[in-house]
């Protein structure tokens, strides 16, 4: 299934395939490949949603993936369903001309016909079918209109494929020369479609130039064709594009008729835009919307998170008794695995809420306006408004955000976006903020400042990202940028099925990718803090001096202190003292490097509570408020808490993110670079905050 971005492709794909979608990656690269089995009568068909593209020229990564999926020689699609926006036929037909040249069987789905009617226009599907020489079906995905017909057309065409005729009114001499070149090539054993021959003449890739060097007999016909066309002044890509658009415009004029003279240019969308992209109101509303999103995440997720926590402690309580005879195994299962899985699943509500908002904002068309507003700011930093979407996704989790950076049109801005995406405050940082705000900000300053601090913590990463990109673009990254292009689709109500499916698939991807690593790391951290065991002699001594209820806690604390993790934390304490962190905080920080989600359970173990701890835990809050340095000074001041939060805001504490960056950039260089610069910045910021607060007498 191919089409322009904003053609309504996803809505149609969802309507066709429902919730059985599989999200995987294209081999080698990591553009997401969304596919689904579709039942057509007795047949089962695999339907693949190709990334939305404007052209097969393959300028961006998405386009390269789409192009190679469409033009795959070894495994060509049996049928291309091209999705055309009925209100914007001209431009969408341009892509059609390019796919038609590939010689593939085609079925057309025309979307947005309802909106066309609202504009007082009518599109004749029969006329369009006749013009293009293939089956066309009008569909309205979210209303199920035309879906059955489209399925029938797909089924019919899989049996008796129809290939579109391609006469796009391109200059005659050019077409004849291309056809001849293709014939000469095929005689040499090179099998290429007309489109491929055209591209190799206009914009030979490096790969292709090398190929020509190696096979002089192939380069000969190329040279003659090139010379002939140059002599006739026909070797101009602009002529090609121009003729296609002229053809598309003619088709549009023939198939779309205006029913009424109603001039609907000052549409609802224009009226809404007068406010939403206004220079003052637009920006104010944007900030308001973002604030609302993050406040909702904070408030709406909490009850569900409590419920999940409750569920997991119930499971732990249920499985514990039969394991009493084997304390090591019990601790591994209850503290390590159940604690780890619970500690990960607890983020699911937040991720779902965030993806709900992203899907709604995207579905209504507001996300594009936000990109329009933000382009100025992001452009100054060397990114563009489009980066807003991957960066916003990174607020849920940097992993989908980094993947979404593929919407960037060129390698340079894409890399810049990837490198700062993890600075956006992902939901895994929330627990740290929540527990520290709950322990040190809310009791002293009240709920308003608690909410404000949470909001501010989300700003820290963004504020730091701007100078980082600025430096990256000037000093580190090379290459050219493609022009910034952004469509502003008309406003519409979000399609709820698309919203639910986006939440569902994102949630599934999160549980799968993050889950495996976090479960493994939880077991590892459990082992590091569980071994070596405290000697029985020492336990007995503690039992003697302490009251029974204190003894348990004291033993656990001693156990951790002399475990591998605790020893390492103590060894590294001097490094963190300038930031005001003692060995306990250092240990928590260390344990959080593989996945920052684990920090709250770690703090729980470290401040001696056992690790059935979540960020709402009042006991952990009290334990942290009461923790002291050996000399009796309070360990945590408001500023220590702030420093720790900023440290977490900036630090690269997520193995899954680094692994994703490695996969996306296909090199270890960038994840290593990312780890170093983020951790360095985090450390410097924490030290700076602590030292400034000391200077200020805090």
């Amino acid at each position, binding site marked *: 299934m191919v089409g322009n971005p904003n053609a309504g492709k996803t809505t149609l794909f969802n309507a066709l395939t429902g919730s059985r979608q599989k999200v995987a990656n294209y081999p080698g690269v990591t553009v997401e490949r969304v596919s689904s089995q579709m039942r057509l009568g007795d047949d089962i068909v695999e339907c693949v949603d190709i990334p939305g593209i*404007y*052209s097969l*020229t393959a*300028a961006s990564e998405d386009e390269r993936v789409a192009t190679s999926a469409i033009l795959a020689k070894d495994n060509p699609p049996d049928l291309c369903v091209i999705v055309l926006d009925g*209100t*914007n036929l*001209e*431009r969408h037909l*341009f892509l059609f001309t390019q796919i038609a040249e590939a010689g593939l069987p085609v079925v057309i789905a025309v979307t947005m016909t309802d909106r066309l009617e609202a504009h007082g226009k009518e599109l004749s599907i029969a006329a369009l079918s006749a013009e293009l020489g293939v089956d066309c079906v009008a569909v309205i995905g979210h209303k199920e209109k035309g879906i059955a017909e489209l399925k029938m057309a797909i089924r019919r065409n899989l049996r008796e494929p129809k290939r579109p005729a391609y006469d796009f009114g391109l200059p005659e001499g050019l077409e004849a020369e291309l056809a001849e070149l293709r014939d000469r090539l095929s005689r040499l054993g090179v099998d290429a479609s007309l489109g491929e021959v055209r591209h190799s003449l206009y914009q030979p890739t490096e790969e292709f130039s090398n190929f020509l060097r190696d096979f002089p007999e192939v380069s000969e016909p190329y040279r003659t064709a090139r010379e002939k066309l140059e002599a006739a002044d026909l070797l*101009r*890509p*602009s002529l090609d*594009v*121009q003729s296609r*658009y002229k053809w598309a*415009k003619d088709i549009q004029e023939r198939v779309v008729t205006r029913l009424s003279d109603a001039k609907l240019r000052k549409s609802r969308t*224009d009226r809404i*835009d007068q406010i939403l*992209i206004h*220079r003052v109101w*637009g*920006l104010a509303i944007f900030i308001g919307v973002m604030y609302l999103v993050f406040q909702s995440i904070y408030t709406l997720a909490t009850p569900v998170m409590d419920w999940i926590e409750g569920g997991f402690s119930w499971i732990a309580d249920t499985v514990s008794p039969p394991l009493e005879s084997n304390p090591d195994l019990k601790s591994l299962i209850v503290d390590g695995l159940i604690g780890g899985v619970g500690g990960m699943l607890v983020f699911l509500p937040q991720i779902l809420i965030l993806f709900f908002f992203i899907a709604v904002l995207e579905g209504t068309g507001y996300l594009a306006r936000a990109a*329009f*507003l933000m*382009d*100025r700011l992001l*452009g100054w930093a060397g990114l*563009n*408004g489009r980066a807003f979407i991957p960066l916003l996704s990174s607020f849920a989790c940097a992993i989908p955000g980094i993947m979404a950076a593929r919407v960037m*049109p060129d390698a340079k801005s894409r890399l810049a976006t990837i490198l700062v995406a993890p600075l956006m405050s992902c939901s895994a940082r929330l627990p740290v903020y929540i527990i520290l705000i709950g322990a040190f900000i809310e009791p002293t300053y009240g709920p308003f400042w608690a909410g404000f601090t949470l909001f501010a913590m989300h700003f820290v990463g963004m504020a730091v990202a701007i100078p980082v990109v600025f430096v990256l673009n000037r000093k580190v990254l090379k290459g*050219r940028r*493609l*022009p*910034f*292009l*952004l*469509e*502003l*689709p008309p406003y519409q109500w979000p399609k709820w099925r698309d919203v639910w499916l986006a939440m569902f698939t994102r949630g599934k991807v999160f549980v799968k990718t993050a889950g495996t690593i976090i479960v493994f790391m939880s077991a590892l951290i459990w082992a590091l803090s569980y071994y070596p065991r405290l000697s029985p002699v020492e336990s007995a001594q503690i039992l003697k001096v302490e009251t029974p209820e204190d003894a348990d806690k004291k033993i656990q604390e001693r156990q951790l202190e002399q475990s591998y993790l605790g020893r390492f934390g103590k060894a590294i304490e001097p490094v963190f003292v300038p930031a005001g962190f003692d060995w306990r905080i250092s240990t928590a920080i260390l344990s959080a490097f593989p996945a920052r989600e684990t920090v709250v359970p770690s703090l729980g173990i470290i401040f001696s509570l056992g690790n059935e701890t979540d960020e709402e835990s009042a006991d952990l809050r009290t334990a942290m408020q009461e923790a002291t340095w050996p000399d009796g000074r309070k360990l945590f001041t408001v500023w220590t808490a702030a420093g720790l939060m900023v440290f977490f805001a900036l630090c690269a504490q997520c193995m899954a993110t680094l692994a994703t960056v490695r996969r996306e950039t296909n090199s270890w260089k960038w994840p290593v670079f990312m780890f170093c610069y983020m951790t360095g910045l985090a450390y410097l910021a924490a030290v700076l905050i602590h030292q400034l607060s000391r200077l200020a007498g805090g």
Partner: protein
Amino acid sequence: MTTSRALTFADLKTGMYARVTGVEENCLESRRLQEMGFTVGTEFHVVKVAPLGDPIEIDLRGYRICLRKRECACIELEAIV
């Protein structure tokens, strides 16, 4: 009476109408803009210029697109008065 004068994207203001008069060949930026519909002879309308002058929103071939002025230097224009 229609008169015209040469323009670049940098000269565009909200509400203006313009026509593409020339494009650079063998240039990736120019090629991409042509594929989006900015071919020679195409007329379009500037809907809005963002705060601080960039990007601009253009109504072209019946759809809305945002571009940065300075990234469109490869396209020559004339004003339609």
